[in-house]
Each structure stands twice: as structure tokens, then as C-alpha cells.
């Protein structure tokens, strides 16, 4: 009988775990649905910001601006977007993997600013990088003000010449079943011009005719445009990461839930078999005893 008690206890504990994974799956699914709509909106905004930035980048004035020139021979700042919570499959480990890979190719000790508690813990113990800042508890769809301290920091570090480039490492949301870890070069902005050669030539021809006037002054326009561009790109990276996080959690919890069901099925079979064995044993003992008395 002791055997059946143990199995019963295991079944009960797996059932509890299953309830938790089920709940997490449902929550992740509903949160993902909400964020996916925001992903589309943030992409529209981000694309438009890129288009405007591209136009600006072609002007003579912008070429002299430090943020548009070639990457200086300086350390790179990585902005890494992770999650606050775990149970999301390989979401955070994929991000860490790419960050470490990119950091290895750097000539200088890279600087890191991380969003999300999991990332903050991970990078706090990592050698070979300089942790510049860690932000936790960022909303799925944050207000743009969340990034204000970071943007200020980038501006200062670029002005002082402490960093030469800025890259965002985030998870791109492709579909609920597919997400891709990506690295986006935020600064310098000249990558827009060399991104892809054929469309570049076409648009360069068109743009050859268009010479933009800047009002009131190029500096004011650039400052405002760069701020909006940063906000747009950071926002997009955050929202895409949030959508991916929920999607990956949903899938991971769905798998956990199925595994729990399989385990319960297997254990239930085992429980029945042991119980039956115990009953058979008991009957055998009784009949055996009765026969012994009769003999």
C-alpha cells in the first residue's frame, strides 16, 4: 500500500504544477495578443522615423555631424533587452548568447545597458564587459519617457567620445511561433546609406534632385529628429521583445502543460497496476490461508 500512496502524492503534485503552467500559458497568450497590436504600430512609427532620418542623413550638413560619421575607434555600447521573469523558454539565453558572441568580436571592452531583471543579474556577474546601467520592471508598452535617461547618457557619451557605436540587442517578433534574436545598429546612422546597394542607387538618384531645407536651423532639427529616432527604435525593440517574450512563454508553458499531462497519464497507469497487484496479492493470501486451514 505504501507504493500507491507515493504514486498518488506524485500525481497530486504534478496536477498542481500543471494548473500553474496552464494559468501562465493563458496569461501569456492574452498579453501577447495585446502587445502584437502595438508591435505593428511601433513598426509604422519606427519605419517613418527611419525614412526621415535617411533623408536627413543625405544632406551635406548631416555628414559633418558626429552621429552620422563612420564609427570611431571607440568601445561599442550595447543596449540589451531581456525579460523580468523566467519561464519563457530560451528567450533570455538566446539574448545572452548573441551579446557574448558580439562582445567577443569587439576590440575594446564593450559597455552594456540592460533592460529586464534577468539580464541585470546575468551581466552583473559577467567578466569582459562594463555594465553601465540596468533597468527593471519596464512595461510591455512603455511610455517614451522610460528611455529618457538612456538617451541622455548616449548623447553625453557620444559627445565626450567615450563610445563609438551603439547597438540594440533584442528579440524580433516574427510570428507567435517564430522569434529571432537581432542586433540593430542605432549609431552611427550611416548604415542606412549602405544597407542595400540596388535600392540605394535608385533612391540616391531621386534624392539627388531633392535638396532639403532645414528650418529653423539644422542643429535644432537634427537634435529633435535624433531624439525621436532613438525613441522610435528603442520603443520598437522593447515592444517586439515583449511580444516575443510572451509568445515564447506561451509555447514553453504549453509544452510543460502537455508534459505534465503525459506524466499524469503514465503515473495513473502505474498507480492502477500497483493497486491491482496489491489486491491480487491480498486475495492470494486469503485463499492461500483458507486452503491451509482446510487441509
Amino acid at each position, binding site marked *: 500500500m505504501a507504493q500507491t500512496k507515493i504514486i498518488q502524492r506524485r500525481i497530486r503534485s504534478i496536477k498542481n504544477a500543471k494548473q500553474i503552467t496552464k494559468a501562465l500559458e493563458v496569461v501569456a497568450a492574452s498579453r501577447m495578443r495585446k502587445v502584437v497590436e502595438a508591435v505593428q*504600430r*511601433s513598426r*509604422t*512609427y519606427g519605419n*517613418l*522615423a527611419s*525614412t*526621415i532620418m535617411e*533623408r*536627413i542623413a543625405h544632406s551635406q550638413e548631416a555628414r559633418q555631424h558626429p552621429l552620422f560619421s563612420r564609427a570611431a575607434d571607440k568601445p561599442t555600447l550595447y543596449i540589451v533587452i531581456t525579460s523580468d521573469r523566467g519561464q519563457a523558454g530560451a528567450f533570455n539565453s538566446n539574448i545572452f548568447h548573441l551579446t557574448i558572441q558580439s562582445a567577443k568580436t569587439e576590440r575594446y571592452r564593450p559597455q552594456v545597458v540592460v533592460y529586464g531583471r534577468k539580464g541585470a543579474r546575468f551581466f552583473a556577474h559577467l567578466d569582459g564587459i562594463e555594465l553601465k546601467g540596468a533597468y527593471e520592471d519596464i512595461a510591455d508598452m512603455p511610455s*517614451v519617457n522610460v528611455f529618457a535617461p538612456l538617451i541622455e547618457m548616449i548623447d553625453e557619451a557620444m559627445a565626450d567620445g567615450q563610445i563609438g557605436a551603439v547597438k540594440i540587442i533584442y528579440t524580433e517578433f516574427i510570428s507567435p511561433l517564430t522569434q529571432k534574436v537581432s542586433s540593430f545598429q542605432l549609431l552611427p546612422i550611416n548604415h542606412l546609406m549602405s544597407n542595400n546597394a540596388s535600392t540605394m542607387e535608385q533612391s540616391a538618384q531621386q534624392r539627388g534632385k*531633392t*535638396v*532639403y*531645407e*532645414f*528650418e*529653423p536651423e539644422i542643429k*535644432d*532639427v537634427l*537634435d*529633435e*529628429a535624433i531624439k*525621436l529616432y532613438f*525613441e*522610435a527604435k528603442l*520603443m520598437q525593440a522593447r515592444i517586439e521583445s515583449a511580444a516575443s517574450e510572451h509568445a515564447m512563454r506561451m509555447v514553453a508553458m504549453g509544452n510543460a502543460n502537455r508534459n505534465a499531462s503525459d506524466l499524469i497519464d503514465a503515473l495513473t497507469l502505474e498507480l492502477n497496476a500497483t493497486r491491482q497487484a496489491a489486491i491480487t496479492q491480498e486475495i492470494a493470501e486469503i485463499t492461500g490461508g483458507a486452503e491451509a486451514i482446510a487441509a
Partner: protein
Amino acid sequence: MLHFQLVSTSGTKYDDEVYEVLVPTRAGVVGIFEDHMPLISAAQPGVLSVRKKTNDPDSAMEHFAINGGVVEVDGKTVRFIADDITTSDEVSEQEANIALKRAEELVKNADSQVALHEAHRLLHHSSAKLHLAQLKKRHHR
């Protein structure tokens, strides 16, 4: 006709053919029609207005409160991005009034140059919202 795109972080607010766009920039309000010279400009917190058809009276214009942003004009298309754009459906006079009071407080209590700058920006933004709310009221009369 011009193609006008107005996009904020919370999505596309306007995307259609228009006759005229009035944008408050740091150098004053700019009226943009078709074949305007190529221009990139930084906007000022204020009210952005759109006239859809040539003969539309001022009362038929559509208005948006903006907190800054960047406008790009290439003669055929006007693109405007800002992190916060309020449509006239979203605005309420009462809330705008409260926000304006709060911004005035902030301007009074600002203890640094940066804070004062921010407070001024907020003040302009809330007065733009209030202006928008009043414009809306006028139309409904």
C-alpha cells in the same frame, strides 16, 4: 493634393490626401501646400491643422495637439512624427485645464534649467491641448 502622414508612438493618426497642412514650427506656423519646397523642420508644441479640400472653411479643418516632433516635406508628401499626438476626439477641456494648471505649477517650482525647459514644453503642450478642446467645442455649437 498632398499626401499627409501623421504618426505617433501609439499608431497612425492620419494618412490621407489633403489640400493644406498647418504645422507649428520653431520659426512660426508653416502652411504647406502641394509642391512646397523640400523641407525638414522641428515642430513646436501646438496645434497642427489639416484642410482636406480646397474649399473647406476653417471650421471644417481637422486639428491635432502635438508636443513637438519632426516634419518632412518633399513636395508631394508630408510626413510628421511626434511621440505624443492628441486627436480632437481624445481631448477633453476639463482634463486639459487640469494639465495646464499642473504645468504652470511645474514652471513656478522648477529648480534647474533642464526642469524649467521641460516644464515649459509641458506647458505649451497642455495649452495646445486646451486650444484643441476649445476648437472642438466651437465646431459643435
